[in-house]
């Protein structure tokens, strides 16, 4: 089984090399057969990698301790879910998952791309395979998951217990679908640059892939954030850690790309900018991979630091980003914009959207890499952390949230600011009123909470206004609106809900740290918490200490919670399992600390307002994307049929 996996991986590399050359040569010389050969090759490459991945999964499930990765990341007593998740819970396996998803996207393009111009499809498949060649070689030469040990040990060293969690089991695959999904936008961009043609049809093809990647990134990031919230034990949800930033930058650029592709599709403008964004979005995915895999920037996620691998990935980075940008520099000036639009128009609004998202991504980028740069250039050892990003990044999103509802209802080509502003007056007034209400209700004079509430409400109400206008102010027509309209409104409202959640929890969290003896009670905000007892217990591969705590409000029991401290003996590592009572407007969050010398227990408790809005908002954004995607799919078929005839007109 293992040898088959290894062989199959090498085979995939050989197929990928063929796929990267034959269709491309075919497209350049006009040989149709050669171009069409890309389709079976893409499918074969996917099958080969899938076999390889299945072999590694098999090794993890059966605890084959003759494999080095299995020894280092698994244990015979580990629950089955984490044996499987352990496949990608380590460097080698996660890279294998990376190329599996890459090949899956290639195969999807091969299968569903029948309506595409043959040359464009051939070139896109070739570029996709070129990325595959680079990463398959990386795996085989520096990170082979099928390395054997001469003397297999009796048992493995287990997976890092922090990673043994359902939330984290599925977080990496989602993120990878997002990262790697952007490779499709990249491949299409490079294919278009080689072919020298970017038009509405091209944008229509790129958009669904970008949208899919963005949905996966949104969900993946939200999952990671949720995991951090309940697993790390102090209820933080975002740390501006380099690895988080590595996923956030592609998300921001993918969001920008989604919007600019609309302009290319509908108005044939912003072509070269869209191509550039497509290259950069995937480039940032690669930079993210580099940051995570090389350990060049110290990070809490650095479970696979290795400088040699870093150099290899840096080479891939130089090839794909540098090559892409060079090609862009040569070809982009030839691309002609056709659409004409006024200063106040949807086009302009989307340009502002793109600027804000791109600059925000750049701020995250420079903040993440600055410590490295400052050390190399100025020999300064400095740190850049959350306090920097909170200040330097937030303003861009505040501006974005302010202008978004205006931009969303501006008409294409030419609009009037006053006409656009009038229907939004109600939303604006209500949002300001909500902000004022929040200000009046809170203790203290912090602006964060009220401003966040007002901005969030403005986005949600603005999205509703947008729908209302699209339906011609007729309720009956709402149901008949295209799904993309609903998707747009849902995604924009989702952003508003995220903003409400983030600012609410940051502004109004109540925290309490104290020593509590069994039987004692203490106040927490409007609640009273009692420590009823602490007991020892055992899990499958850990021992635990579990408290029973009762939360009461005005004498009535709100929740009985069981915060835990676990100890994983194989890795000799303790973890904190917070107990959370989730609610629409607040979470009650309890963690158990150490036994104190006076016989009490250290207890940290929080009331965290609006926390769940963060993830609900992220889900809503993802759902909006999905709605839009389901609409697009219908339109792609239509578009592909229309393309030849629609071309000469406008």
């Amino acid at each position, binding site marked *: 089984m293992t040898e088959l996996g290894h062989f199959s991986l090498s085979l995939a590399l050989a197929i990928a090399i063929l796929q990267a050359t034959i269709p491309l040569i075919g497209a350049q010389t006009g040989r149709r057969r050669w171009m069409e050969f890309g389709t079976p090759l893409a499918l074969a490459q996917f099958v080969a990698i899938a076999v390889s991945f299945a072999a590694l999964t098999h090794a993890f499930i059966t605890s084959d301790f003759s494999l080095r990765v299995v020894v280092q990341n698994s244990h015979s007593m580990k629950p089955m879910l984490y044996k499987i998740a352990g496949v990608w819970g380590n460097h080698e396996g996660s890279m294998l998952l990376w190329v599996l998803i890459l090949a899956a996207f290639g195969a999807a393009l091969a299968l569903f791309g029948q309506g595409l111009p043959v040359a464009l499809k051939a070139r896109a498949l070739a570029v996709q395979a070129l990325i595959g060649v680079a990463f398959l070689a990386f795996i085989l030469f520096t990170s082979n998951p099928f390395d054997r040990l001469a003397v297999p040990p009796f048992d493995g060293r287990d997976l890092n217990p922090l990673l043994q969690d359902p939330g984290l089991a599925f977080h990496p695959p989602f993120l990878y679908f997002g990262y790697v999904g952007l490779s499709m936008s990249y491949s299409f961009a490079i294919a278009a640059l080689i072919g020298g*043609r970017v038009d509405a049809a091209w944008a229509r093809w790129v958009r669904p892939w970008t949208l899919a990647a963005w949905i996966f990134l949104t969900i993946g990031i939200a999952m990671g954030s949720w995991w951090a919230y309940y697993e790390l*034990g102090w209820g933080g949800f975002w740390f501006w850690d380099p690895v988080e930033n590595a996923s956030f930058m592609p998300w921001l650029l993918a969001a920008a790309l989604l919007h600019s592709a609309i302009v290319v599709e509908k108005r044939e403008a912003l072509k070269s900018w869209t191509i550039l964004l497509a290259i950069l979005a995937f480039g940032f995915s690669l930079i993210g991979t580099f940051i995570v895999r090389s350990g060049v920037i110290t990070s*809490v996620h650095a479970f696979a630091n290795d400088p040699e691998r870093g150099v290899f990935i840096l080479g891939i980075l130089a090839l794909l980003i540098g090559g892409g940008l060079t090609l862009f520099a040569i070809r982009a000036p030839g691309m002609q914009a056709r659409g004409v639009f006024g200063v106040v128009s949807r086009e302009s609004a989307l340009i502002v959207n793109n600027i804000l998202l791109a600059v925000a991504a750049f701020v995250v980028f420079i903040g993440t890499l600055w410590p490295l740069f400052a050390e190399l250039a100025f020999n300064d*050892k*400095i740190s*850049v952390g959350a*306090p920097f990003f909170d200040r330097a990044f937030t303003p861009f999103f505040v501006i974005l949230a302010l202008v978004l509802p205006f931009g969303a209802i501006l008409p294409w080509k030419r609009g009037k600011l006053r006409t656009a502003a009038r229907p939004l007056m109600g939303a604006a007034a209500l949002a300001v009123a909500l902000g004022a209400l929040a200000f009046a209700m809170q203790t203290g004079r912090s602006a964060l909470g009220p401003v966040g509430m007002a901005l969030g409400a403005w986005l949600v109400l603005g999205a509703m206004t947008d729908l209302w206008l699209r339906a011609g102010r007729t309720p009956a027509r709402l149901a008949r609106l295209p799904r993309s309209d609903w998707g747009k409104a849902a995604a924009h409202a989702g952003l508003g809900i995220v903003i409400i959640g983030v600012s609410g929890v940051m502004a109004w969290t109540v925290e309490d740290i104290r020593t509590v003896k069994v039987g004692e009670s203490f106040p927490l905000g409007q609640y009273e918490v009692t420590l009823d007892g602490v007991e020892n217990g055992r899990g499958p591969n850990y021992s635990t200490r579990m408290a029973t705590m009762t939360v009461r409000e005005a004498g009535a029991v709100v929740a009985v919670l069981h915060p835990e401290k676990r*100890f994983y003996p194989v890795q000799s590592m303790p973890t904190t399992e917070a107990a959370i009572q989730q609610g629409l407007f607040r979470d009650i969050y309890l963690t158990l600390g150490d036994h104190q010398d006076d016989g009490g227990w250290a207890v940290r408790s929080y009331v965290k307002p609006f926390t769940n809005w963060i993830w609900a908002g992220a889900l809503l954004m993802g759902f909006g994307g999905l709605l839009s995607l389901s609409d697009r799919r219908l339109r792609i078929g239509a578009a592909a049929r229309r393309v*030849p005839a629609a071309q000469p007109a406008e």
Partner: protein
Amino acid sequence: MRMRGLRLILAVFLLAFALPALAVQPDEVLKDPALEARARALSEIVRCPVCQGENIDDSNAGIARDLRLLIRERLMKGDSDDEVIAYLTDRYGDFILFRPRVSGPNLILWGAGPVLLLVALLGAFLYIRRRSSAGPPAVEAPLTREEQERLEALTSAPPME
């Protein structure tokens, strides 16, 4: 640590449990809430020197606890926030600050976003002005050979009724 009366195996686990401490411990919290709030705010911008990217407020490391206690000690002695930070950077360097100073080369870091925004807005304004005054392009994009073939195939095919 009270281990009396517990079996040996439990004692081993207890010892292991006791090694890492939760972030801020109850015994660290200052009586004066205002002073404690300042201490917390400070410890959120101070990096734990031995951890990977954690501030001392969140960190479980021993040195993080020492630093948290140190900050509280300085505050009790009447230091201002800036004096506490100066005290720490004198000993650990700027590396310990998660919020880089707005001076020297770091001005590039802080200024990059706003400057880029202004440049981009200016560029966008020029682009939009050009697009709003431009007429349609003189030459329509010609069809590719492939499209031409498909067009001919479509137009020469008998009408589908």
